[in-house]
C-alpha cells in the first residue's frame, strides 16, 4: 500500500520577539486584555529584509537537514501562504531558487489559516497519484506586513513564522491515514485583505484601512468552534479511529479560547491538544506546521502514535488530517 510518510519537519521563527507590552500603539490599560482574550503573550516579527519566501526557505532548510536530503532531490514544493511576497509569481518559486531545488516544480496554495493542512493533502495526492515520490510542503506567513498596526482586534493576534514537512512515498504503516478538506465560499468576506487584488486595486482604495487584513471576530469564533469539532469527528469516522487512538491534536493556533472550546466539543482530553500560541501568536497557515515541528523535536511523538491536525480560516476553509508516526 502506498502511503505518504512524514520523513522530517522543520520550522523557522524570526528573531525579533514582540511582547504584548511592546505594542505601545495601544492604550496601556488595554494590553492585559490580549493575553486574557487570546492566550497570546508574544509573537515574532520578520526582520526588515525578510519576506515570506525567506522564512519559508529557512524552515525548509531545517527540514531537509533533518532528513539528510539534498535540495536537488526534492521533486515538488508546495508553499501555503496567504501573505505572499508578491501577487505574482508564486512565492514558492523564489523558495525553490533559495534552496537550489533545481529538479522540483513549485507552486503556492492560498487557503489562509487552513493552508498548511490543505498543502499537506495536496502533497499526499501528488504522491498517491505516482507523479512524485517526495514533496516538500511549506507554510510561511509574514502577517506583520498586512496587519493594521492600530487595529486592536487583529494586530495583537498575529505573528510571523514558517514550518515545513517533507513527505515521501512509503509502504507504511506510518503516514497520512486520511484527510478532509472543506470550504464555504458564502463566508469569503469574513476574513480578507480588501485591497490589492483585481476586485479593488490600490488605485481604487477608499480608506487606508482597506490595505490591511480584517476579520469579523465573532463570526470567526462561531465558525471555528462549530466546524473544527465537526470535521474532527468526521475524520475519526472516515478513518475508523476512536478518539482514544489520537495521541496528539495540533489545532490551528488561533486563540486559546477557541482551542478550549474545540477540546470541550470532542471526546479527546484537552491535555492532548498541543498549544504554543502563547509564544508565537497566530501564524496563520504556518501555525500547525510550526507546532508539529516543535512537538516532534520535543521527542514527545513516538513511533506508532497518531497525530491529528485541524485548521480553520479564511475562505471560509477548514481541514483535518490524521498522521501515523
Amino acid at each position, binding site marked *: 500500500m502506498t502511503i505518504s510518510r512524514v520523513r522530517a519537519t522543520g520550522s523557522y521563527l524570526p528573531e525579533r520577539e514582540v511582547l504584548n507590552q511592546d505594542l505601545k500603539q*495601544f*492604550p*496601556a*490599560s*488595554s494590553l492585559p*486584555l490580549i493575553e486574557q*482574550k487570546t492566550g497570546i503573550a508574544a509573537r515574532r516579527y520578520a526582520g526588515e529584509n525578510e519576506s515570506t519566501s525567506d522564512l519559508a526557505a529557512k524552515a525548509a532548510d531545517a527540514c531537509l537537514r533533518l532528513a539528510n536530503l539534498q535540495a536537488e532531490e526534492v521533486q515538488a514544493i508546495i508553499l501555503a501562504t496567504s501573505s505572499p511576497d508578491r501577487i505574482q509569481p508564486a512565492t514558492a518559486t523564489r523558495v525553490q531558487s533559495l534552496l537550489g531545488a533545481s529538479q522540483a516544480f513549485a507552486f503556492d496554495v492560498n487557503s489562509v489559516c487552513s493552508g498548511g493542512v490543505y498543502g499537506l493533502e495536496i502533497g499526499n495526492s501528488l504522491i498517491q497519484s505516482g507523479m512524485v515520490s517526495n514533496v516538500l510542503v511549506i507554510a510561511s506567513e509574514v502577517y506583520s506586513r498586512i496587519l493594521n498596526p*492600530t*487595529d*486592536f*482586534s487583529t494586530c*495583537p493576534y498575529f505573528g510571523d513564522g514558517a514550518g515545513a514537512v517533507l513527505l515521501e512515498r512509503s509502504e507504511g504503516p506510518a503516514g497520512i491515514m486520511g484527510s478532509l478538506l472543506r470550504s464555504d465560499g458564502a463566508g469569503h468576506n469574513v476574513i480578507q485583505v480588501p485591497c490589492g487584488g483585481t476586485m479593488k486595486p490600490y488605485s481604487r482604495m477608499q480608506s487606508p484601512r482597506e490595505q490591511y487584513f480584517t476579520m*469579523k*471576530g*465573532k463570526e470567526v469564533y462561531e465558525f471555528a468552534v462549530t466546524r473544527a469539532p465537526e470535521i474532527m469527528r468526521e475524520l475519526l469516522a472516515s478513518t475508523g479511529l476512536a478518539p482514544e487512538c489520537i495521541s496528539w491534536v495540533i489545532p490551528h493556533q488561533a486563540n486559546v479560547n477557541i482551542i478550549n472550546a474545540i477540546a470541550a466539543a470532542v471526546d479527546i482530553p484537552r491535555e492532548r491538544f498541543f498549544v504554543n500560541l502563547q509564544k508565537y501568536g497566530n501564524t496563520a497557515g504556518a501555525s500547525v506546521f510550526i507546532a508539529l515541528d516543535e512537538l516532534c523535536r520535543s521527542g514527545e511523538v513516538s513511533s506508532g502514535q497518531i497525530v491529528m491536525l485541524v485548521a480553520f480560516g479564511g475562505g471560509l476553509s477548514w481541514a483535518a488530517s490524521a498522521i501515523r508516526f
Partner: protein
Amino acid sequence: MHKIIACIKEVFPDCDPSTITPDTRLGDLPGWDSMTSINLLMELEAVFSVSLSNATLTAKQQVSDVAGLLRDKGIEL
C-alpha cells in the same frame, strides 16, 4: 452626535449609521466585542483630541453613554 456616529461607522463598517440613535446598545453594533471596543476608544481619542486611557466601554452601554464620557472630559457635543 454625528461625529460620534462617524467614529462608530469608521470602526464598525458593517453598521448602518442611519439606524444609530442615542439609545443604540453598543453590544448591538455589528462586530462589537471587547477588542473592537478598544478601537472605538482609540478612534474617539483621535477625532476628539482627548485622552480616554482609563475609560472602558461595555456592550451594555449605549451611544448616549459615549456622549456622556466625552462630555465628562470637557468635550462639547
